[in-house]
């Protein structure tokens, strides 16, 4: 067809060249002819345009498939796993630690957030059969005032709560701290009942699974692998990404792919089928992703390693708790004295002492938070325990995780920390992780050496330079391209089709601009 049109055009050009334009009559005739010619070719052009538009339409109408169903199941299963494991107590499992952390690290004095945390914690107690009332909040008279209002009907009016809070906050700037300490006190007081509740919920959760927690973990791993496979076989998304310009056809040319295959597989590529190379590439990419995460979380690993190896005084935790109980006894006595004092002078005299005791309790709790994670690390880890186990523990202890994140970046908001924790949990629960499941926390192995030697066995040419943090992203991008290349091959999608689609889309864009 192209040849035919080309011949026609050349003939027409000759005709137009021979038409005279030397006088007005000839020029008019020339213009009439040229207009006829323009109309004729415009019609042909429109017809071709229409056809091309029809051909690209199915690609244009592609919509990205999301995997929300999987994501929500993962969230549910990992929530269940955080309940059923034996690495944490009711305090962490019921997320009281997280809510207390929010209170104690109240970033912007956000009253709405404070009340939300209080409500969440009260709801947890309620679910466990402990209906808290204002009388449970007698840590200080200010806490009591605020919580009386909090439990009253007037608390549904946010501005009234705000007003009340401000009124009390002016008298007692430590109100938030006191609320936090009161909640901690209530946890210790009702710990046994809360643990019982957790056991009950755990039984309920596991009753859906024949083999208990093992089933839960297997289901999770099965779904994660299924999702990976589904993504790999998702023709729709592959075409969508090429159509939307996320992937570029020119990156997948034969010579570029050939060069990548030589870089990563060298001679060994000649002894392997396409499928084998694709599978090795997927494995290698996965290992590099895992390696990159290990680098990202290296500060966490080092911190936990130090805590695990540092000595901890025997019974340090229970001794600390005892100190707190004694201080609280003292506090409650002082509160009583203050409430029953007839004179304002006497009350004022007691205030500094009350504040001093509160400060001491606060310091003891800070010490406990620090001791707690070291205590659980030492209790649950052995010298042959893996990084995976240490990460699982870390994921259970929000305050330690949040502190570790804030040490790296003090500007992080709670939302960002929560997001990081989600990503962290998703990473550690990946069933295809190999390094963190085999390297121990106390190992002094260089992980890059492990990657290099493991892949040499598969005939993959990894070098130390490729694993440098600055080169890692490029290396992973190369491997992703190779996988896409094999996906295209497996799905019989030709680069020519994708290239044509892009040309048509560009053509349509220019056409729209010209109109």
């Amino acid at each position, binding site marked *: *067809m*192209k040849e035919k*049109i*080309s011949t026609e*055009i050349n003939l027409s*050009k000759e005709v*137009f060249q021979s038409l005279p*334009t030397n006088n*007005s009559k000839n*020029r*008019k005739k*020339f*213009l009439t002819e*040229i*207009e006829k*010619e*323009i109309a004729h*070719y*415009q019609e*042909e*052009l429109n*017809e*071709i*345009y229409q*056809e*091309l538009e029809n*051909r690209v339409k199915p690609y244009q109408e592609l919509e990205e498939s999301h995997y929300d169903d999987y994501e929500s199941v993962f969230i549910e299963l990992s929530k269940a796993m955080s309940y059923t494991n034996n690495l944490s107590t009711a305090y962490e499992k019921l997320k009281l630690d997280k809510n207390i952390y929010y209170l104690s690290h109240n970033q912007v004095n956000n009253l709405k957030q404070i009340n939300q945390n209080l409500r969440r914690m009260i709801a947890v107690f309620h679910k466990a059969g402990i209906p808290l009332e204002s009388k449970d909040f007698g840590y200080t008279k200010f806490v009591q005032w605020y919580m009386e209002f909090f439990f009253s009907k007037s608390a549904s009016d946010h501005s009234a709560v705000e007003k009340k809070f401000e009124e009390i906050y002016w008298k007692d700037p430590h109100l938030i701290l006191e609320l936090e300490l009161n909640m901690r006190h209530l946890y210790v007081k009702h710990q046994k009942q809360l643990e019982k509740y957790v056991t009950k919920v755990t039984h309920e959760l596991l009753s859906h699974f024949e083999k208990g927690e093992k089933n839960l973990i297997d289901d999770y791993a099965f779904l994660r692998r299924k999702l990976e496979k589904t993504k790999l076989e998702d023709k729709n998304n592959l075409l969508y990404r090429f159509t939307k310009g996320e992937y570029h056809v020119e990156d997948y040319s034969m010579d570029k792919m050939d060069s990548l295959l030589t870089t990563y597989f060298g001679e060994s590529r000649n002894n392997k089928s396409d499928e084998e190379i694709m599978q090795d590439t997927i494995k290698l990419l996965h290992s590099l992703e895992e390696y990159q995460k290990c680098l990202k979380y290296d500060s966490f690993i080092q911190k936990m390693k130090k805590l695990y190896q540092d000595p901890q005084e025997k019974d340090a935790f229970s001794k600390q708790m005892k100190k707190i109980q004694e201080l609280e006894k003292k506090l409650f006595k002082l509160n009583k004295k203050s409430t029953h004092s007839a004179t304002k002078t006497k009350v004022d005299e007691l205030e500094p002492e009350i504040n001093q005791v509160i400060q001491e309790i606060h310091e003891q709790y800070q010490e406990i938070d620090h001791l707690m994670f070291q205590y659980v690390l030492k209790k649950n880890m052995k010298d042959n325990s893996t990084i995976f186990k240490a990460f699982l523990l870390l994921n259970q202890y929000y305050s330690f995780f949040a502190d570790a994140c804030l040490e790296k970046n003090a500007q992080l908001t709670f939302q960002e920390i929560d997001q990081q924790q989600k990503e962290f949990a998703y990473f550690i629960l990946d069933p295809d992780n190999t390094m963190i499941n085999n390297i121990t926390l106390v190992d002094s192995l260089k992980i890059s050496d492990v990657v290099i030697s493991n892949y040499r066995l598969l005939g993959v040419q990894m070098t130390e330079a490729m694993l440098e943090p600055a080169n890692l992203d490029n290396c992973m991008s190369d491997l992703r391209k190779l996988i896409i290349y094999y996906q295209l091959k497996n799905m019989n999608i030709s680069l*020519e*089709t994708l290239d*044509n689609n892009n*040309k*048509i889309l560009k*053509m349509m864009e220019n056409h729209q601009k010209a109109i």
Partner: protein
Amino acid sequence: MKVETVDTKELIACYELILDYLKQLETKKKEVEKNDEGKN
């Protein structure tokens, strides 16, 4: 012209060829119109 049966790559080439020719025709037309205006 039976465009439906033509291969996409060729069709794109035809489109470009015609588009280019149309541009040439438009230029030529303008040139003659201008010439005509000048001489009248």
